[in-house]
């Protein structure tokens, strides 16, 4: 799952991400501004074939790769349940 998230981040950033960096830096420190984070979330929705409104009433900006993985897991589970 981590690999999928990194691939999405790399696609949005347009550059490679060092695996050793992902738990050291926040998404902003990795160069992702809020619009880029939004693109990542939209791609997660697409990949999990689910939508964020099924889980969240409001979307706080995720700060770390761990946050994104957690969102991915929740959406993925939601899809399986459906």
């Amino acid at each position, binding site marked *: 799952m981590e690999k999928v998230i990194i691939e999405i981040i790399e696609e949005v950033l347009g550059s490679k991400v060092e695996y050793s960096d992902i738990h050291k830096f926040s998404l902003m420190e990795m160069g992702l501004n809020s619009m880029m984070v939004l693109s990542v979330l939209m791609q997660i929705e697409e990949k999990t074939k689910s939508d964020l409104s099924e889980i969240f009433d*409001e979307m706080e900006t995720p700060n770390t790769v761990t946050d994104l993985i957690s969102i991915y897991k929740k959406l993925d589970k939601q899809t399986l349940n459906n």
Partner: protein
Amino acid sequence: MNSEVLLKYEVPSWVSSDNNATRINITHLGEVLEFPYKNFPNKIAINDGKVSYTFKQLQELSSLLSKKLTQQGIKAGDRVIVLSEKYCEVVIIMIAIWKSEAIYVPIEPESYSKRADFFESSLEPKLIFGSELHKQKILSDVVFFSFKEIEDLHNFENISYPFVKKSSVNDIAYIIHTSGSTGIPKGVCIEHRKLINYFHNHNEVLRFNEKSYGFSISPFHFDVSIEDTLLPISTGSTVYIYRGLPVASIILNILEKEKITHLIAVSTILTLITSNTKKLDDANLNNLEMVMTGAEVCDSNVINKWLKKLPHARVINAYGPTEVTIVCLTHTIKSSDTVIPIGKALTNNYVHLLDDDGNIIKEINTKGELLIGGDQLMHGYWNNEEETNKVFKIIDEKIYYRSGDICYKNDDNDYVFVGRKDSEHKINGRRINLGEIKHFLLLHPKITNAAVGIINDSKTNEKNIIVVLCFHTEISKVFSEAIINELRQIIPFYLFPNIIGFSNDFIFGKTGKIDEKEMIRQFSEKIISYPESKIFSLNNNNILPIN
């Protein structure tokens, strides 16, 4: 509330109501809640999904806070900075500031932290509001109030301290900062009278009333937040304050669940909301009466989806520089519009097009710079007479604002936006100046010069900030990554370049100066072959992707 009951009360001039209702002339924003407070005290005024406030609570809490501000020594004309998170409580704060006759200055926290010395020396604020996290960003010993102060107010008895207006209607109500060409932000000063004029003029189009449900998504440091929050609540509308990321599926859910009637979203946000086509198709948005967009040219595909989805509703394109109080031209979009105009001037706004020689253009379909005058025009830029004089022009003894926007008038006498005259651009709803980006880039000690431009992404049609950075030192991957990391500490994220070229070569123009436009043009042409890369090395006319 039926119209019979409503007749017993006085109604502000901008609220649509029965003709027999008594009209009151509100002249100061300290009085902005009088109408809903008297008529609908227990109705929800603002709600963010977790916290909500009735009109009675808003009125009382803002009065209590105002009293507290006065006790702190805040007096007429003092600047109060609000490091503006999207909290419901900011509405209470802004009204309390006005009740104290001080000036509301919302500033984005990140911008503030990068320029705290400028804001504190230029504005000399008497007080700063922010969350606890922001406290450390303040340089001087100015008084800091946490947003938590509002929670503490709940412990007071519910006593309404009546607002007694003392200062002039010409006093400044708020200062909102825009990007400046020299890298120094310009503080646009809007007076109480001008904002009230705006309420009157724009609500003829928006048509907010006590039955409306608004949706506020604009950050409070954007003037659009006044349009989507303060204007509706002044009419008795309920406003849903959305503070999260603009995820299409979530927003569409809220629009449906909260039965929103009025959606105001700058084109970037509207595009995002529209991106989930399936969700948009499935959503029941029958309550939506009006969708207003603007700030940038909106993609006609996006507009067409809304026209198709909401055949009963009005879809409106709005235009307005901060300097002319939020919005001054609008156009109700028709499905037959092949090019979407910015439309015609609101009531009491006047527009002209000027050619390069300063002559007024009378002919249709002839391009010129758009000038706007009338009763929404700003007072000027804060402490910046030079910049104020540059943008004001007198025509027939009336003052006009030079927008820098190139427009033409079409066959229907609607104005159509074409582009910018100078180096200002709108990206993601923000007005940015290329000069400001250059200013930040040159703060880096190793960058000897920089060229800055904007290019359109051919796939997404989004605007990208493109820069060529010039160095005397040798460029390597490690070097470029280090520079980028250092620049992230200097440049606000919304000004950070999307595509960067590292160069040892300069291109000189005929005058001997570095020809920035030519450097950007050549760089833009070369990067087409590398659509996946964002960072490049440029040497001896060769280009090499670094990432």
